[in-house]
Structures are given as structure tokens and as C-alpha cells.
């Protein structure tokens, strides 16, 4: 299945944000949620089918214009599943652009790598100088009591024209050493939260296998590894709360 979705948020000129474009197709269906009033807009990915499924080719574009504020969430976890025999890996490509003085908060539910899946997730975000980005990616390696499928996630976050954060994570039988003590140490859940731009909390150890680390450029990465997703949430959720939420 091929699908494309697009969100364009822009300032409404009265201190708020409006959605100029909100377009999706199954399984990338989008709904505006939350109150109409207030400065920020929330969009949920509602999901039109189980998946992604082997062979799916999905693409989402997000654009947040100057001074606009957008939060994207999802109603349920993505469950990456194997497709028909011989199908190519499933793909989800996300491109986002955040303008000056704009804020994008990307806070989806986790991706679950079901046994036998082969999934590639690619993310590329461009943040203009003065823009703010909060980008969360959680991954669960297999459903309850099953081995992990193969997932490769590739993230590039650029800020003010320079690459701030480049990260690839590969789990599953195709990723040598992924469950060893250097990578996940037998942990089944891992989460990352990139905070780019000005005005974030101070770096800190977050308890357990989690830390909020200052990047070399203007931003931070919170990283957490857990036996299951609860430990990752306990470490990262407090950093994702927005004022007023």
C-alpha cells in the first residue's frame, strides 16, 4: 500500500495557529483534535489499518510556518508486521520543516516491531534558527513474548542549516549485537527525545538507563532504555509535557 499525508500549519495572525493543509489517506489518516481555541493545534494520526505491513510505502510531510505551533500525536501504537512472502520492507518516510519562532511537538505512540517484520523508518527534520522542535520516537522490540522483528530507524535533525543530530538504530535478527550490552542490553524498549532550539531543561541523569544529554549544537537528546515501554515512558514523558497540557 502506498500512502501520503501532509500537514501544513501556519500562524493565523491572531496569536493562534490554523491548518492550511490536513490531508491523509489510509493508513495515514489525520484528524484535528483538541479545543479550537488556544495558540497551538493538535493533530492525531488515527490509523486506517493495521500496519505498516511489509511492502507498504508511506510518506508524511509536516510543515510548520513562522510563529505557528503544532503538536502531532497518534491514537495507537504503530505495529510493524511482516507482509506477503517476498514483499519489500515496509517504509515510513517523514519530512518536517519548522520555521523561525515556530514549534513542532512530535509525540506519537511507540512503534512495535512484531516478529518477522522488516521496517525502515526515515526521519528528516529541518528547523530554522529560532524554531523549536520536540521529537519523540519510542520503539518496542516485539509484542509480548515474541522475538523482535527487524526495524531500522534513521533520524536526521538539522538546525539553522547544520546537522544537529544524526542517529540510526537497528534492532532485530538483522542487526548484529543489537541486544548485547553495548546497544540495548536485553532491553525491549528504547526511546529518544530530541529537543532542538532554545529554552529547554538542564541536562540530567534521569534514573535507570536514561539521561538528558546536551548535544554539541543547540539542543538536547533524552535517551532511555527499558525492559519494557513503561520504563521509557517514566523517563521521557515528564519532558514532553507542554505548558497548559
Amino acid at each position, binding site marked *: 500500500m502506498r500512502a501520503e499525508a501532509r500537514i501544513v500549519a501556519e500562524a493565523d495572525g491572531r496569536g493562534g495557529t490554523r491548518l492550511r493543509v490536513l490531508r491523509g489517506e489510509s493508513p495515514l489518516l489525520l484528524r484535528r483534535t483538541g479545543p479550537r481555541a488556544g495558540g497551538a493545534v493538535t493533530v492525531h494520526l488515527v490509523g486506517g489499518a493495521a500496519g505498516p505491513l511489509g511492502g507498504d510505502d508511506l510518506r508524511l510531510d509536516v510543515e510548520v510556518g513562522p510563529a505557528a505551533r503544532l503538536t502531532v500525536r497518534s491514537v495507537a501504537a504503530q505495529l510493524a508486521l511482516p507482509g506477503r512472502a517476498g514483499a519489500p520492507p515496509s517504509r515510513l518516510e517523514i519530512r518536517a520543516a519548522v520555521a523561525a519562532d515556530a514549534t513542532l511537538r512530535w509525540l506519537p505512540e511507540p512503534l512495535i516491531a512484531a516478529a518477522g517484520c522488516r521496517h525502515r523508518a526515515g526521519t528528516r527534520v529541518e528547523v530554522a534558527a529560532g524554531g523549536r522542535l520536540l521529537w519523540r520516537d519510542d520503539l518496542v522490540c516485539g509484542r509480548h513474548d515474541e522475538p523482535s522483528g527487524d526495524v531500522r530507524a534513521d533520524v536526521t535533525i538539522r538546525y539553522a542549516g547544520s546537522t544537529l543530530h544524526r542517529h540510526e538504530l537497528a534492532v532485530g535478527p538483522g542487526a548484529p549485537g543489537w541486544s548485547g*550490552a553495548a546497544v540495548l542490553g536485553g532491553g525491549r524498549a528504547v526511546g529518544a527525545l530530541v529537543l532542538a532550539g532554545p529554552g529547554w531543561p538542564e541536562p540530567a541523569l534521569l534514573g535507570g538507563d536514561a539521561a538528558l544529554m*546536551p548535544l554539541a549544537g543547540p539542543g538536547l537528546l533524552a535517551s532511555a532504555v527499558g525492559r519494557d515501554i513503561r520504563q521509557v515512558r517514566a523517563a521521557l514523558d515528564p519532558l514532553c509535557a507542554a505548558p497548559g497540557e
Partner: protein
Amino acid sequence: MSLATLLVLADGRLPAGGHAHSGGLEAAVAAGRVRDVGDLGGFLRGRLHTTGLVSAAFAAGACARTGDFRDLDRGLDARTPSPALRRASRAQGRALLRAGRAMWSLPELGREPHHPVALGALAAAAGLGPREAAVAAAHGTVSGPAGAAVRLLGLDPYAVHALLARLAPEIDRIAADAAARTDDPVDDLPAAGAPLLDLGAELHATWEVRLFAS
């Protein structure tokens, strides 16, 4: 290309500060994740296919693109979210430059380039190619912690070296791939991360007493 020169560059006794770095092993041991040779095997394999892959690509790049040090150095910054690991990489780069300047004629690389960048520059100055730079880089990312494991845990050194011998074909493949990608834009070079190496390094940096610098 001189094989003997490659041995000089990759020699564990090269006075470039490597003995004081455990490549994250000291933290993994303290966390109870590496207790025996089996655990160490998993640690080394994961490290090779993350940090090793990235180091190989950037060492090969720095060897082939002698004018691109700054871009490659920034590329490693973007791939190293842990400030403790950025410091460790730059400390080892600085130490490697000191050793390299005594052996070969090096270009200006700043005071503390990241270690893979320094290694690639040394390889180029020594007349080696990107593949050799990448082999030395990938090998170093596992031989260092393997030696640290022998010292920290008292593991059987023969069993530990057997692990390294089993990783050698993977090191060769990683190095060949790295050498084939030296023309790629920096953003497209490998960026394989290892969350527990980052987190372990941050925790390790707060310890009051450390036997290893990283």
C-alpha cells in the same frame, strides 16, 4: 600501501592513550551487563556494528578527503549525543595526533579532533588508504574494550582474543564498505548509535573513582 605501516598504526602499544579507555566496558561491567566471555562477545559485536561502523566510515573519509576535516568532525559531533563520549573521542584524537606527529608529517587538524578523524589523517600521512584507515578504526573500537575486559574482569585472555578473531571478517567487511563510501555527503555516512554506550558513558562520567577514562 605498506602493510607494515598499517601494523604500526594499529598496534595496541601505540602510545596514543588507548589503554586508559575501555570503550564503555567499565560502565557495562558496573551495570552487571558484562560478566563473562559470552556477555563480552555480545558487547563487542554491538559496539563494532555501531561505533565501529561509524568510526570506520569517518576514518576512511578523513583519509580520502584530507581537506574535509571540519565537516567530518562536525559529522561526528552530530553522531555523538553523549558529551562524555565526545570528550573521550577528542581526548583520544589529541593523543593520537601527538603520537602521529612524531611519526609522520601531519596537516593542521586543530587541537582535539575526534579520534576517527585524527586516525584517517594519520593514515593518509603515512601513505595508507581509506580501507586501511577504516580497518584500523574498526579494529580499535573492539580491541580496546577487549583488553580492558581482560584487565577488569580477569577473563581468560585466550578466550577474549578468540572473540576478536571471530570478529575479524566483519571488521574487513565494514572497512570495505567504509572505503567505498568516502565520496558520500557527510549526512549520508553511517550513524549507527548504541543507546547503552551513550547512557553508560554519562553515568560513568559522574563516578567518583574510575579506573578508565571512558
